């Protein structure tokens, strides 16, 4: 399979795949931080912006990704997955989505590694930026904070989708053909946001829904097993976020390799005509064949140890909320918060490959129309109420008196009494009031 690929192309391709994987993780995790992400365009290349995109690197996330990859690259049968889950303040958790970077065996031998693959990977990252704002977990992540947080986990090996529940949907972000296989990026996301709370299950049977109590003590104080993310978003820049130390300048040069700096990625345009980015270049007699020099060193990043374990999962990383940017929705003290979630997923594109088809769950509830019982009721748990209950606890009281009967004076049958009758009875009423005028005056005096 690799026999037609030159050693230089193979080396370039491995580097592209490695940094594509790292940037993919950064885009996904940053999209679940709960904030809007802004980066600046720059007309001059800085040398550290892989794929010509300004994607900052959160060091902890890069560290977790490299730990999960453990020196390997995503390849055929070796997928890199980023799992996003939600954890409530009561300790209940639920997987929301799994992003999968995979490779299948379909090769494109004619594709040019140095620019076509590189530019298509750049396009795929742009698609990822757009799609990460579209899946249901994005809205949830924007509202995280006091009641729940969003977590991420990176693992390498076989894709695990069982935690997404029945009826999960899949969206394909895109594919890029390479000489060693086709890179596929997709997302499988949960549609049924019902949460089985294990504590409630013990007492009263399964309760469905997500219970959000605004009046719990500040959660996550004992999160020793989580990785606290130390970054803060300040003034439009990420303090503590480093630009990638890996040099990736896409400077396209015509010089022969010996004259090029080792830190420049280069290729040559033919002297005549234009370079075809998407089709094989017909090299003219006047042009040199394209030459590649890739960064010879990895900057300041330490090498990963050479004893990887397959399927190693990085530890859970917690994506912090940013309270400065978020204001938790506070309910009045006597009200209860009750959340019933139904997700209307966008229809997934028709599977066009066995790989795609395999990601669909066995139930096809999305195609046959949603069953009507998708709306699930959450048990009404008012703030401050206890579970060992009085005959008339706060929840029952609230339900019973939520809809009081209408006032009798508002339910007068209008057809019986007409305005003419009202007007006729006025003089009588006025006469009575005039007779009792002294009483009214005395009443007014008591008020003063």
């Amino acid at each position: 399979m690799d026999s037609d690929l030159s050693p230089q192309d193979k080396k370039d391709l491995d580097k592209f795949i490695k940094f594509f994987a790292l940037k993919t993780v950064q885009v996904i995790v940053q999209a679940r931080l709960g904030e809007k992400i802004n980066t600046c365009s720059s007309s001059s290349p800085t040398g550290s912006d892989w794929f010509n995109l300004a994607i900052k690197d959160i060091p902890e996330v890069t560290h977790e990704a490299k730990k999960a990859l453990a020196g390997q690259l995503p390849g055929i049968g070796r997928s890199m997955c980023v799992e996003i889950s939600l954890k409530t303040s009561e300790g209940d958790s639920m997987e929301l989505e799994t992003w999968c970077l995979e490779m299948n065996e379909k090769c494109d031998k004619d594709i040019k590694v140095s620019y076509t693959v590189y530019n298509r990977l750049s396009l795929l990252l742009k698609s990822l930026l757009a799609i990460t704002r579209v899946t249901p977990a994005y809205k949830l992540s924007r509202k995280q904070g006091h009641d729940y947080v969003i977590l991420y986990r990176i693992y390498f090996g076989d894709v695990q989708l069982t935690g997404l529940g029945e009826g999960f949907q899949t969206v394909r972000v895109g594919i890029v053909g390479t000489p060693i296989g086709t890179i596929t990026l997709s997302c499988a996301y949960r549609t049924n946001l019902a949460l089985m709370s294990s504590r409630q299950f013990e007492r009263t049977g399964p309760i469905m829904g997500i219970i959000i109590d605004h009046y719990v003590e500040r959660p996550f104080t004992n999160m020793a097993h989580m990785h606290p993310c130390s970054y803060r978003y300040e003034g439009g820049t990420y303090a503590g976020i480093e630009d990638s130390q890996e040099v990736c300048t896409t400077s396209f040069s015509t010089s022969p390799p010996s004259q090029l700096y080792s830190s420049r990625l280069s290729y040559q345009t033919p002297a005549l005509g234009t370079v075809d980015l998407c089709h094989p270049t017909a090299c003219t007699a006047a042009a040199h064949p394209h030459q590649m020099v890739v960064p010879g060193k990895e900057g300041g990043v330490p090498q990963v140890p050479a004893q990887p374990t397959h399927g190693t999962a990085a530890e859970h990383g917690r994506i912090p909320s940013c309270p400065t940017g978020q204001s938790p929705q506070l309910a009045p003290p006597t009200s209860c918060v009750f959340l019933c979630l139904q997700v209307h997923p966008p229809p997934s594109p028709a599977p066009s490959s066995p790989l795609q088809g395999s990601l669909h769950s066995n139930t096809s509830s999305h195609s046959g129309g949603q069953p009507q019982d998708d709306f699930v009721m959450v048990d009404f748990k008012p703030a401050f109420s206890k579970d060992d209950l009085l005959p008339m606890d706060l929840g029952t009281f609230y339900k019973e008196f939520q809809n009081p009967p209408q006032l009798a004076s508002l339910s007068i049958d209008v057809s019986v009494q007409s305005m003419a009758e009202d007007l006729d009875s006025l003089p009588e009423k006025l006469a009575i009031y005039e007779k009792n005028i002294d009483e009214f005056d005395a009443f007014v005096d008591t008020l003063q």
Partner: protein
Amino acid sequence: MNCRSEVLEVSVEGRQVDEAMLALLHTILLHRSTGKFHYKKEGTYSIGTVGTQDVDCDFIDFTLVRVSSDELDRVIRKAVAEFKDALGNSGSDGMGQISLEFYQKKKSRWPFSDECIPWEVWSIKVNVVNLANEQERQICREKVGEKLGEKVINIVEVINRHEYLPKMPTQSEVYNVFDTSLKDVQPYLYKITYQITDSLGTSVSTTMRRLIKDTLAL
């Protein structure tokens, strides 16, 4: 070469027209913009960096991602505002179509002007609905947000088919492929046109006038 044509349809409330159009146009332009090319001697060039920006919509439950370029944003907003005004002034049932066309220029001999050859056209058909109360508006916020999400997935699907793209040009040819007028990013040459459908279903030919105007301006 046949021009690739894609059609997207959305139904929105009047106040959502701007944001819905911006969401879709910016998503397409994000994928059809590169960093600025800097040509050096001997046919080499480097490419600048494209930044991105999340923008929350006010009237739709949706966050769009656009290229970080205020200049480009201003141009798109102006075109969308003109379209919305035309929709409002037409007196029709609120149906129209805005098109984003990517094209290449091909030099012609004198006295003919350069030819514009489209290679990809995105047409967004808009149906403006009127809603009776706030509850319907709230439902519409969410529904339109979901619909825009579907459209973004459709756009991404088309883009990632990796079909025809113009060849990367040499320095002398770059103006025939890319819009080099912006200082921070470089989209493929594009033009935005619109049509308003009147209540009889026939299209008013504002498009022709604009196309002729654009051609004469070259």
